[in-house]
Protein backbone atom coordinates (compact mmCIF):
# COMPACT_ATOMS: atom_id res chain seq x y z
CA UNK A 1 0.00 0.00 0.00
CA UNK A 2 1.43 3.31 -1.12
CA UNK A 3 0.98 6.01 1.46
CA UNK A 4 1.92 9.68 1.27
CA UNK A 5 1.63 12.55 3.69
CA UNK A 6 -0.56 14.33 1.16
CA UNK A 7 -2.25 13.72 -2.18
CA UNK A 8 -3.02 16.78 -4.28
CA UNK A 9 -5.64 16.37 -7.01
CA UNK A 10 -4.99 18.76 -9.89
CA UNK A 11 -1.79 20.51 -11.02
CA UNK A 12 -3.26 24.00 -11.48
CA UNK A 13 -2.39 27.12 -9.47
CA UNK A 14 -4.02 25.89 -6.24
CA UNK A 15 -2.68 22.33 -6.37
CA UNK A 16 0.86 23.28 -7.28
CA UNK A 17 1.01 26.02 -4.63
CA UNK A 18 -0.15 23.49 -2.03
CA UNK A 19 2.34 20.88 -3.25
CA UNK A 20 5.31 23.28 -3.21
CA UNK A 21 4.45 24.44 0.32
CA UNK A 22 4.15 20.90 1.68
CA UNK A 23 7.14 19.44 -0.19
CA UNK A 24 9.41 22.25 1.02
CA UNK A 25 8.41 21.44 4.60
CA UNK A 26 9.60 17.88 4.00
CA UNK A 27 6.26 16.14 3.50
CA UNK A 28 5.88 13.37 0.93
CA UNK A 29 3.52 14.73 -1.69
CA UNK A 30 2.02 13.32 -4.88
CA UNK A 31 0.25 15.56 -7.39
CA UNK A 32 -2.24 13.81 -9.68
CA UNK A 33 -3.09 15.58 -12.94
CA UNK A 34 -5.59 14.24 -15.47
CA UNK A 35 -4.02 16.07 -18.41
CA UNK A 36 -1.10 14.54 -20.26
CA UNK A 37 0.83 17.56 -18.94
CA UNK A 38 -0.11 20.30 -16.46
CA UNK A 39 -2.13 22.97 -18.27
CA UNK A 40 -3.52 20.63 -20.94
CA UNK A 41 -7.04 21.25 -19.62
CA UNK A 42 -6.65 24.76 -18.28
CA UNK A 43 -7.81 28.07 -19.67
CA UNK A 44 -7.94 31.62 -18.38
CA UNK A 45 -7.90 35.14 -19.86
CA UNK A 46 -5.22 35.40 -18.52
CA UNK A 47 -3.79 37.89 -16.12
CA UNK A 48 -1.79 36.61 -13.17
CA UNK A 49 -0.66 38.61 -10.14
CA UNK A 50 2.97 38.60 -9.07
CA UNK A 51 2.79 38.88 -5.30
CA UNK A 52 0.78 35.65 -4.89
CA UNK A 53 3.23 33.82 -7.13
CA UNK A 54 6.17 35.25 -5.18
CA UNK A 55 4.64 33.96 -1.94
CA UNK A 56 5.18 30.46 -3.37
CA UNK A 57 8.17 30.89 -5.69
CA UNK A 58 10.25 33.82 -4.34
CA UNK A 59 11.80 36.06 -7.00
CA UNK A 60 10.17 33.99 -9.76
CA UNK A 61 10.59 36.92 -12.17
CA UNK A 62 14.36 36.47 -12.03
CA UNK A 63 13.94 32.86 -13.13
CA UNK A 64 12.75 31.55 -16.46
CA UNK A 65 9.03 32.06 -15.68
CA UNK A 66 6.93 32.14 -18.88
CA UNK A 67 5.65 35.69 -18.44
CA UNK A 68 4.11 36.93 -21.70
CA UNK A 69 3.97 40.67 -20.99
CA UNK A 70 4.04 42.81 -17.84
CA UNK A 71 0.82 44.85 -17.63
CA UNK A 72 1.59 48.57 -17.78
CA UNK A 73 -1.87 49.76 -18.75
CA UNK A 74 -5.41 48.69 -17.92
CA UNK A 75 -8.26 49.96 -20.02
CA UNK A 76 -12.00 49.60 -19.52
CA UNK A 77 -14.34 50.20 -22.42
CA UNK A 78 -18.04 50.82 -22.02
CA UNK A 79 -19.06 49.81 -25.50
CA UNK A 80 -22.08 50.13 -27.73
CA UNK A 81 -22.21 48.48 -31.14
CA UNK A 82 -20.18 51.25 -32.75
CA UNK A 83 -18.55 53.30 -30.00
CA UNK A 84 -16.89 53.02 -26.60
CA UNK A 85 -16.35 55.29 -23.66
CA UNK A 86 -12.87 54.44 -22.47
CA UNK A 87 -11.25 54.83 -19.07
CA UNK A 88 -7.98 53.39 -17.95
CA UNK A 89 -4.78 53.75 -16.04
CA UNK A 90 -1.30 53.91 -17.41
CA UNK A 91 1.42 54.78 -14.98
CA UNK A 92 5.09 54.09 -14.45
CA UNK A 93 4.23 53.61 -10.78
CA UNK A 94 2.80 50.36 -9.53
CA UNK A 95 3.83 48.26 -12.51
CA UNK A 96 6.45 46.66 -10.27
CA UNK A 97 6.40 46.24 -6.50
CA UNK A 98 9.39 47.78 -4.65
CA UNK A 99 11.28 44.46 -4.74
CA UNK A 100 10.98 44.26 -8.55
CA UNK A 101 8.10 41.80 -8.61
CA UNK A 102 5.66 42.60 -11.44
CA UNK A 103 2.19 43.50 -10.16
CA UNK A 104 0.29 41.89 -13.03
CA UNK A 105 1.33 40.03 -16.15
CA UNK A 106 -0.24 37.98 -18.91
CA UNK A 107 0.30 34.24 -19.25
CA UNK A 108 -0.77 31.33 -21.46
CA UNK A 109 -1.83 28.64 -19.06
CA UNK A 110 -0.50 25.60 -20.91
CA UNK A 111 2.98 27.13 -20.64
CA UNK A 112 2.62 28.67 -17.22
CA UNK A 113 1.16 25.58 -15.53
CA UNK A 114 3.92 23.36 -16.85
CA UNK A 115 6.58 25.73 -15.51
CA UNK A 116 4.81 26.10 -12.16
CA UNK A 117 4.39 22.33 -11.76
CA UNK A 118 8.09 21.90 -12.46
CA UNK A 119 8.76 24.07 -9.39
CA UNK A 120 6.76 21.56 -7.34
CA UNK A 121 8.88 18.73 -8.69
CA UNK A 122 12.05 20.67 -7.86
CA UNK A 123 10.71 21.07 -4.32
CA UNK A 124 10.42 17.28 -4.09
CA UNK A 125 6.78 16.59 -4.96
CA UNK A 126 5.98 13.64 -7.21
CA UNK A 127 4.00 14.75 -10.26
CA UNK A 128 1.88 12.08 -11.95
CA UNK A 129 0.17 13.40 -15.08
CA UNK A 130 -2.29 11.47 -17.24
CA UNK A 131 -4.11 10.25 -14.14
CA UNK A 132 -7.78 10.75 -13.31
CA UNK A 133 -9.07 10.49 -9.77
CA UNK A 134 -12.36 8.60 -9.88
CA UNK A 135 -13.28 8.45 -6.25
CA UNK A 136 -12.18 9.04 -2.70
CA UNK A 137 -11.27 6.27 -0.30
CA UNK A 138 -12.87 6.33 3.13
CA UNK A 139 -12.18 4.71 6.46
CA UNK A 140 -14.21 5.31 9.63
CA UNK A 141 -15.92 8.33 8.07
CA UNK A 142 -12.77 10.10 6.99
CA UNK A 143 -11.02 10.49 3.65
CA UNK A 144 -7.90 8.35 3.57
CA UNK A 145 -6.93 8.35 -0.09
CA UNK A 146 -8.03 8.30 -3.72
CA UNK A 147 -8.96 5.73 -6.35
CA UNK A 148 -7.29 6.62 -9.64
CA UNK A 149 -8.15 5.39 -13.11
CA UNK A 150 -4.94 3.36 -13.21
CA UNK A 151 -4.76 -0.35 -12.49
CA UNK A 152 -4.15 -1.00 -8.81
CA UNK A 153 -4.40 2.75 -8.61
CA UNK A 154 -5.43 3.22 -4.98
CA UNK A 155 -3.27 5.76 -3.19
CA UNK A 156 -3.41 6.61 0.50
CA UNK A 157 -2.51 9.75 2.41
CA UNK A 158 -3.16 11.56 5.68
CA UNK A 159 -4.73 14.43 3.76
CA UNK A 160 -6.22 14.79 0.28
CA UNK A 161 -6.17 18.34 -1.10
CA UNK A 162 -8.84 18.79 -3.79
CA UNK A 163 -7.76 21.29 -6.44
CA UNK A 164 -9.52 19.63 -9.36
CA UNK A 165 -11.13 22.76 -10.71
CA UNK A 166 -14.58 24.09 -11.46
CA UNK A 167 -17.50 21.65 -11.06
CA UNK A 168 -15.37 19.30 -8.99
CA UNK A 169 -17.09 15.95 -8.67
CA UNK A 170 -14.79 15.11 -5.77
CA UNK A 171 -16.06 18.00 -3.65
CA UNK A 172 -19.47 16.38 -3.87
CA UNK A 173 -18.04 12.95 -3.09
CA UNK A 174 -16.25 14.43 -0.09
CA UNK A 175 -19.72 15.53 1.14
CA UNK A 176 -18.55 19.15 1.27
CA UNK A 177 -21.34 20.52 -0.92
CA UNK A 178 -24.97 19.93 -0.09
CA UNK A 179 -26.50 22.19 -2.77
CA UNK A 180 -25.62 21.65 -6.43
CA UNK A 181 -23.88 24.38 -8.43
CA UNK A 182 -26.54 26.36 -10.33
CA UNK A 183 -26.30 27.87 -13.85
CA UNK A 184 -26.08 31.40 -12.44
CA UNK A 185 -23.07 30.36 -10.36
CA UNK A 186 -21.08 29.78 -13.53
CA UNK A 187 -19.84 31.95 -16.34
CA UNK A 188 -18.78 30.40 -19.60
CA UNK A 189 -15.68 31.96 -21.10
CA UNK A 190 -14.66 31.49 -24.73
CA UNK A 191 -11.41 32.77 -26.13
CA UNK A 192 -9.04 32.80 -29.06
CA UNK A 193 -5.30 33.22 -29.00
CA UNK A 194 -4.47 35.18 -32.13
CA UNK A 195 -0.87 35.28 -33.35
CA UNK A 196 0.65 38.65 -34.30
CA UNK A 197 4.30 39.74 -34.50
CA UNK A 198 5.56 41.32 -31.26
CA UNK A 199 6.45 44.61 -33.02
CA UNK A 200 2.94 44.85 -34.45
CA UNK A 201 1.44 44.39 -31.00
CA UNK A 202 3.78 47.01 -29.54
CA UNK A 203 2.89 49.54 -32.25
CA UNK A 204 -0.86 48.90 -32.06
CA UNK A 205 -1.11 49.03 -28.31
CA UNK A 206 1.46 51.78 -27.71
CA UNK A 207 3.89 49.53 -25.85
CA UNK A 208 7.60 49.04 -25.41
CA UNK A 209 9.24 45.64 -25.48
CA UNK A 210 7.86 43.31 -22.81
CA UNK A 211 5.05 45.68 -21.85
CA UNK A 212 1.40 44.66 -22.03
CA UNK A 213 -2.11 46.06 -21.98
CA UNK A 214 -5.41 44.67 -20.73
CA UNK A 215 -8.76 45.86 -22.08
CA UNK A 216 -12.04 44.87 -20.42
CA UNK A 217 -15.08 45.54 -22.57
CA UNK A 218 -18.53 45.97 -21.04
CA UNK A 219 -21.82 46.59 -22.82
CA UNK A 220 -22.99 45.61 -26.27
CA UNK A 221 -20.46 42.79 -26.71
CA UNK A 222 -22.39 40.59 -24.26
CA UNK A 223 -25.71 41.19 -26.06
CA UNK A 224 -27.83 41.80 -23.03
CA UNK A 225 -26.20 39.12 -20.88
CA UNK A 226 -24.09 39.73 -17.77
CA UNK A 227 -20.38 39.49 -18.38
CA UNK A 228 -17.59 41.17 -20.29
CA UNK A 229 -15.23 40.83 -23.19
CA UNK A 230 -11.47 41.23 -22.99
CA UNK A 231 -8.37 41.77 -25.08
CA UNK A 232 -5.04 40.94 -23.44
CA UNK A 233 -1.63 41.24 -25.07
CA UNK A 234 0.78 38.31 -24.95
CA UNK A 235 4.35 38.34 -26.32
CA UNK A 236 3.51 37.50 -29.93
CA UNK A 237 -0.21 36.88 -29.66
CA UNK A 238 -3.35 38.53 -28.38
CA UNK A 239 -5.94 36.77 -26.21
CA UNK A 240 -9.44 37.90 -27.09
CA UNK A 241 -12.47 36.46 -25.34
CA UNK A 242 -15.77 36.93 -23.64
CA UNK A 243 -17.41 35.45 -20.57
CA UNK A 244 -21.11 35.56 -19.69
CA UNK A 245 -23.32 33.80 -17.18
CA UNK A 246 -24.39 30.31 -18.20
CA UNK A 247 -27.94 31.03 -17.01
CA UNK A 248 -28.13 33.92 -19.46
CA UNK A 249 -26.73 31.83 -22.32
CA UNK A 250 -29.45 29.27 -21.61
CA UNK A 251 -32.11 31.96 -21.88
CA UNK A 252 -30.84 33.91 -24.92
CA UNK A 253 -29.73 30.81 -26.85
CA UNK A 254 -26.83 32.78 -28.32
CA UNK A 255 -24.01 30.31 -29.02
CA UNK A 256 -20.86 31.44 -27.20
CA UNK A 257 -18.71 31.22 -30.35
CA UNK A 258 -21.05 33.67 -32.06
CA UNK A 259 -20.64 36.03 -29.14
CA UNK A 260 -16.87 35.73 -29.54
CA UNK A 261 -17.07 36.31 -33.28
CA UNK A 262 -19.18 39.42 -32.67
CA UNK A 263 -16.53 40.75 -30.28
CA UNK A 264 -13.77 40.10 -32.81
CA UNK A 265 -15.74 41.99 -35.45
CA UNK A 266 -16.56 44.97 -33.22
CA UNK A 267 -15.30 48.09 -35.04
CA UNK A 268 -13.01 48.98 -32.12
CA UNK A 269 -11.60 45.48 -31.67
CA UNK A 270 -11.20 44.43 -35.30
CA UNK A 271 -8.28 46.79 -36.08
CA UNK A 272 -6.38 45.47 -33.06
CA UNK A 273 -6.55 41.92 -34.44
CA UNK A 274 -6.17 42.67 -38.15
CA UNK A 275 -3.83 40.34 -40.00
CA UNK A 276 -3.65 37.98 -37.04
CA UNK A 277 -4.01 34.22 -37.28
CA UNK A 278 -6.03 32.21 -34.77
CA UNK A 279 -3.68 29.77 -33.07
CA UNK A 280 -6.20 28.27 -30.71
CA UNK A 281 -9.84 28.44 -29.66
CA UNK A 282 -10.69 27.55 -26.08
CA UNK A 283 -13.57 27.54 -23.62
CA UNK A 284 -13.98 26.97 -19.90
CA UNK A 285 -16.51 27.41 -17.12
CA UNK A 286 -15.65 29.98 -14.45
CA UNK A 287 -17.08 29.57 -10.94
CA UNK A 288 -18.61 33.00 -10.26
CA UNK A 289 -21.10 32.16 -7.52
CA UNK A 290 -19.03 33.84 -4.83
CA UNK A 291 -19.04 33.30 -1.09
CA UNK A 292 -22.64 32.14 -0.86
CA UNK A 293 -22.06 29.35 -3.39
CA UNK A 294 -18.85 28.03 -1.84
CA UNK A 295 -18.66 24.47 -0.53
CA UNK A 296 -17.41 23.63 2.94
CA UNK A 297 -13.65 24.06 2.74
CA UNK A 298 -12.47 21.17 4.90
CA UNK A 299 -13.47 17.81 6.29
CA UNK A 300 -11.80 14.89 7.99
CA UNK A 301 -8.64 14.32 5.96
CA UNK A 302 -9.65 16.63 3.12
CA UNK A 303 -9.26 20.27 2.01
CA UNK A 304 -10.53 22.19 -1.06
CA UNK A 305 -8.87 25.10 -2.86
CA UNK A 306 -9.16 27.14 -6.06
CA UNK A 307 -11.96 26.86 -8.63
CA UNK A 308 -13.16 23.66 -6.94
CA UNK A 309 -13.98 25.89 -3.95
CA UNK A 310 -15.46 28.69 -6.09
CA UNK A 311 -12.63 31.09 -5.29
CA UNK A 312 -13.14 33.67 -8.03
CA UNK A 313 -13.55 37.42 -7.71
CA UNK A 314 -15.30 38.15 -11.00
CA UNK A 315 -15.49 41.92 -10.60
CA UNK A 316 -11.70 42.16 -10.37
CA UNK A 317 -11.04 39.31 -12.85
CA UNK A 318 -9.08 37.54 -10.11
CA UNK A 319 -9.07 33.80 -9.60
CA UNK A 320 -5.72 32.15 -10.18
CA UNK A 321 -4.20 34.39 -7.50
CA UNK A 322 -6.90 33.42 -5.01
CA UNK A 323 -6.21 29.80 -5.94
CA UNK A 324 -2.47 30.16 -5.32
CA UNK A 325 -2.95 31.80 -1.94
CA UNK A 326 -5.57 29.24 -0.91
CA UNK A 327 -3.33 26.40 -2.09
CA UNK A 328 -0.42 27.78 -0.09
CA UNK A 329 -2.58 28.16 3.03
CA UNK A 330 -3.94 24.63 2.56
CA UNK A 331 -0.35 23.40 2.34
CA UNK A 332 0.63 25.29 5.52
CA UNK A 333 -2.39 23.84 7.30
CA UNK A 334 -1.42 20.28 6.37
CA UNK A 335 2.14 20.88 7.55
CA UNK A 336 0.85 22.06 10.94
CA UNK A 337 -1.71 19.25 11.16
CA UNK A 338 1.03 16.69 10.51
CA UNK A 339 3.14 18.28 13.22
CA UNK A 340 0.24 17.82 15.66
CA UNK A 341 -0.37 14.31 14.28
CA UNK A 342 -4.02 15.16 13.78
CA UNK A 343 -5.52 15.58 10.30
CA UNK A 344 -9.14 15.52 11.41
CA UNK A 345 -11.55 18.32 10.53
CA UNK A 346 -10.95 19.85 13.95
CA UNK A 347 -7.34 20.68 13.08
CA UNK A 348 -7.89 21.28 9.37
CA UNK A 349 -10.39 24.01 10.33
CA UNK A 350 -7.25 26.11 10.69
CA UNK A 351 -7.35 26.41 6.88
CA UNK A 352 -10.64 28.32 6.98
CA UNK A 353 -9.26 30.58 9.70
CA UNK A 354 -6.18 31.35 7.58
CA UNK A 355 -8.38 32.12 4.57
CA UNK A 356 -10.50 34.47 6.70
CA UNK A 357 -7.38 36.40 7.62
CA UNK A 358 -6.28 36.63 3.98
CA UNK A 359 -7.67 38.69 1.10
CA UNK A 360 -9.29 35.54 -0.32
CA UNK A 361 -12.30 35.29 1.97
CA UNK A 362 -12.29 38.99 2.85
CA UNK A 363 -12.73 39.95 -0.82
CA UNK A 364 -15.29 37.22 -1.48
CA UNK A 365 -17.20 38.36 1.59
CA UNK A 366 -17.10 42.00 0.42
CA UNK A 367 -18.75 41.02 -2.87
CA UNK A 368 -20.99 38.25 -1.55
CA UNK A 369 -24.17 39.94 -2.85
CA UNK A 370 -22.80 40.80 -6.28
CA UNK A 371 -23.40 37.44 -8.04
CA UNK A 372 -27.13 37.63 -7.27
CA UNK A 373 -27.36 41.17 -8.67
CA UNK A 374 -25.40 40.22 -11.79
CA UNK A 375 -27.78 37.30 -12.39
CA UNK A 376 -30.92 39.37 -11.82
CA UNK A 377 -29.97 42.58 -13.61
CA UNK A 378 -28.15 41.98 -16.92
CA UNK A 379 -29.92 45.14 -18.15
CA UNK A 380 -27.61 47.28 -16.00
CA UNK A 381 -24.68 46.47 -18.30
CA UNK A 382 -26.52 47.57 -21.44
CA UNK A 383 -28.52 50.55 -20.13
CA UNK A 384 -25.71 52.44 -18.47
CA UNK A 385 -23.07 51.84 -21.15
CA UNK A 386 -25.53 53.16 -23.74
CA UNK A 387 -26.37 56.22 -21.66
CA UNK A 388 -22.71 56.96 -20.96
CA UNK A 389 -21.90 56.79 -24.65
CA UNK A 390 -24.88 58.93 -25.55
CA UNK A 391 -23.89 61.61 -23.03
CA UNK A 392 -20.26 61.69 -24.17
CA UNK A 393 -21.34 61.76 -27.79
CA UNK A 394 -23.72 64.63 -27.21
CA UNK A 395 -21.17 66.74 -25.34
CA UNK A 396 -18.42 66.15 -27.90
CA UNK A 397 -20.50 66.87 -30.97
CA UNK A 398 -20.01 70.54 -31.81
CA UNK A 399 -23.04 71.57 -33.83
CA UNK A 400 -23.92 75.04 -32.59
CA UNK A 401 -26.32 73.78 -29.93
CA UNK A 402 -25.66 75.48 -26.56
CA UNK A 403 -24.13 73.18 -23.95
CA UNK A 404 -26.98 73.75 -21.51
CA UNK A 405 -29.43 72.47 -24.11
CA UNK A 406 -27.20 69.43 -24.64
CA UNK A 407 -27.23 68.75 -20.90
CA UNK A 408 -31.03 68.96 -20.96
CA UNK A 409 -31.16 66.48 -23.83
CA UNK A 410 -28.91 64.06 -22.00
CA UNK A 411 -31.01 64.25 -18.86
CA UNK A 412 -34.21 63.74 -20.90
CA UNK A 413 -32.69 60.61 -22.44
CA UNK A 414 -31.55 59.33 -19.05
CA UNK A 415 -35.03 59.85 -17.59
CA UNK A 416 -36.64 58.26 -20.63
CA UNK A 417 -34.54 55.12 -20.12
CA UNK A 418 -34.55 55.13 -16.32
CA UNK A 419 -36.97 57.31 -14.31
CA UNK A 420 -35.21 59.07 -11.40
CA UNK A 421 -36.55 56.66 -8.79
CA UNK A 422 -35.26 53.67 -10.79
CA UNK A 423 -31.93 55.39 -11.29
CA UNK A 424 -31.54 55.93 -7.57
CA UNK A 425 -32.58 52.35 -6.85
CA UNK A 426 -30.10 50.96 -9.41
CA UNK A 427 -27.25 53.00 -7.97
CA UNK A 428 -28.17 51.96 -4.43
CA UNK A 429 -28.31 48.27 -5.38
CA UNK A 430 -24.95 48.41 -7.12
CA UNK A 431 -23.41 50.33 -4.25
CA UNK A 432 -24.80 47.82 -1.76
CA UNK A 433 -23.33 44.90 -3.70
CA UNK A 434 -19.81 46.30 -4.02
CA UNK A 435 -19.34 48.59 -1.03
Amino acid at each position, binding site marked *: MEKFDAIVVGAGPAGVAAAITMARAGLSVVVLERGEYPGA*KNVMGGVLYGSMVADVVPEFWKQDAPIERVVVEERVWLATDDSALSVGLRSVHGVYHPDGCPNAFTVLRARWDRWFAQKAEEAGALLVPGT*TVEDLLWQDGRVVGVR*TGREEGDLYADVVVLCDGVNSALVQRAKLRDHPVEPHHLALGVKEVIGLPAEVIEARFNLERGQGVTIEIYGAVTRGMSGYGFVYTNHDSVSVGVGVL*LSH*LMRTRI*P*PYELLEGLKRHPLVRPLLAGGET*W*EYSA*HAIPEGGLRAMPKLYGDGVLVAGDAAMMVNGLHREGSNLAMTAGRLAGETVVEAKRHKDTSARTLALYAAKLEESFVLQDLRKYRDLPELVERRPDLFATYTELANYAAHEMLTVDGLPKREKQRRIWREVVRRRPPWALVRDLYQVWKAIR
Partner: protein
Amino acid sequence: MEAYTPVRVEDKLYTLRWKHDRTSHITITDPRTCADRCGDEWRRPCTTFCPAKVYEWDPAQARIVVAYENCVECTSCLVGCPYRVIDWRPPRGGFGIQYRYG
Protein backbone atom coordinates in the same frame (compact mmCIF):
# COMPACT_ATOMS: atom_id res chain seq x y z
CA MET B 1 -21.42 44.80 -35.19
CA GLU B 2 -24.14 42.64 -36.70
CA ALA B 3 -27.02 41.58 -34.50
CA TYR B 4 -26.54 37.99 -35.55
CA THR B 5 -23.15 36.76 -36.60
CA PRO B 6 -23.13 33.41 -38.34
CA VAL B 7 -19.95 31.50 -37.63
CA ARG B 8 -18.80 27.97 -38.16
CA VAL B 9 -17.59 26.51 -34.89
CA GLU B 10 -15.92 23.78 -36.94
CA ASP B 11 -13.37 26.37 -38.10
CA LYS B 12 -12.55 27.15 -34.48
CA LEU B 13 -12.39 23.51 -33.41
CA TYR B 14 -9.96 22.95 -36.25
CA THR B 15 -7.33 24.86 -34.23
CA LEU B 16 -7.50 22.31 -31.41
CA ARG B 17 -5.69 19.11 -30.59
CA TRP B 18 -7.15 16.09 -28.82
CA LYS B 19 -6.09 12.62 -27.85
CA HIS B 20 -9.30 10.73 -28.59
CA ASP B 21 -10.52 7.82 -26.55
CA ARG B 22 -12.48 5.06 -28.27
CA THR B 23 -15.46 5.43 -26.00
CA SER B 24 -17.51 8.46 -25.04
CA HIS B 25 -17.03 10.17 -21.68
CA ILE B 26 -20.54 11.64 -22.03
CA THR B 27 -23.86 9.82 -21.74
CA ILE B 28 -27.40 11.09 -21.73
CA THR B 29 -28.86 9.18 -18.82
CA ASP B 30 -32.50 9.74 -19.79
CA PRO B 31 -32.92 10.55 -23.51
CA ARG B 32 -36.71 10.63 -23.10
CA THR B 33 -36.39 13.79 -21.00
CA CYS B 34 -34.69 15.58 -23.93
CA ALA B 35 -37.50 14.51 -26.26
CA ASP B 36 -40.54 14.79 -24.01
CA ARG B 37 -39.83 17.64 -21.64
CA CYS B 38 -36.80 19.71 -22.54
CA GLY B 39 -37.95 20.60 -26.05
CA ASP B 40 -41.10 22.31 -24.82
CA GLU B 41 -39.79 23.71 -21.59
CA TRP B 42 -36.22 24.74 -22.44
CA ARG B 43 -35.72 24.12 -26.17
CA ARG B 44 -32.69 21.98 -25.35
CA PRO B 45 -30.17 24.67 -24.32
CA CYS B 46 -27.20 22.26 -24.54
CA THR B 47 -27.50 22.55 -28.33
CA THR B 48 -26.71 26.27 -28.14
CA PHE B 49 -24.55 26.95 -25.05
CA CYS B 50 -22.03 24.16 -25.63
CA PRO B 51 -18.98 26.01 -27.01
CA ALA B 52 -17.89 22.98 -29.04
CA LYS B 53 -21.30 21.98 -30.42
CA VAL B 54 -21.11 18.56 -28.84
CA TYR B 55 -24.90 18.30 -28.58
CA GLU B 56 -27.18 18.29 -31.61
CA TRP B 57 -30.84 17.48 -31.77
CA ASP B 58 -31.69 14.85 -34.36
CA PRO B 59 -35.41 15.18 -35.12
CA ALA B 60 -35.48 11.91 -37.10
CA GLN B 61 -34.24 9.87 -34.14
CA ALA B 62 -35.88 12.24 -31.64
CA ARG B 63 -32.75 12.32 -29.51
CA ILE B 64 -29.64 14.34 -28.77
CA VAL B 65 -26.61 13.13 -30.73
CA VAL B 66 -23.40 13.51 -28.73
CA ALA B 67 -20.19 14.35 -30.62
CA TYR B 68 -17.94 13.64 -27.63
CA GLU B 69 -14.82 13.99 -29.78
CA ASN B 70 -15.46 17.75 -29.97
CA CYS B 71 -15.64 18.21 -26.20
CA VAL B 72 -13.24 20.85 -24.85
CA GLU B 73 -14.05 19.88 -21.25
CA CYS B 74 -15.39 23.26 -20.15
CA THR B 75 -17.87 21.37 -17.88
CA SER B 76 -20.78 23.77 -18.54
CA CYS B 77 -23.16 20.96 -19.53
CA LEU B 78 -22.88 19.45 -16.05
CA VAL B 79 -24.76 22.46 -14.72
CA GLY B 80 -26.48 23.82 -17.83
CA CYS B 81 -28.64 20.76 -18.53
CA PRO B 82 -31.96 21.80 -16.94
CA TYR B 83 -32.74 18.20 -15.98
CA ARG B 84 -29.19 17.10 -15.18
CA VAL B 85 -29.45 14.12 -17.53
CA ILE B 86 -26.00 14.75 -19.04
CA ASP B 87 -23.58 12.42 -17.31
CA TRP B 88 -20.22 14.05 -18.08
CA ARG B 89 -17.12 12.49 -16.62
CA PRO B 90 -13.53 13.52 -17.24
CA PRO B 91 -12.01 11.50 -20.10
CA ARG B 92 -9.59 8.78 -19.04
CA GLY B 93 -6.25 10.09 -17.80
CA GLY B 94 -4.20 11.63 -20.61
CA PHE B 95 -7.11 11.60 -23.08
CA GLY B 96 -9.30 14.44 -24.29
CA ILE B 97 -8.47 18.05 -25.06
CA GLN B 98 -4.81 19.10 -25.08
CA TYR B 99 -4.48 22.86 -25.06
CA ARG B 100 -1.17 24.12 -26.35
CA TYR B 101 -1.74 27.71 -25.19
CA GLY B 102 -4.79 27.63 -22.92
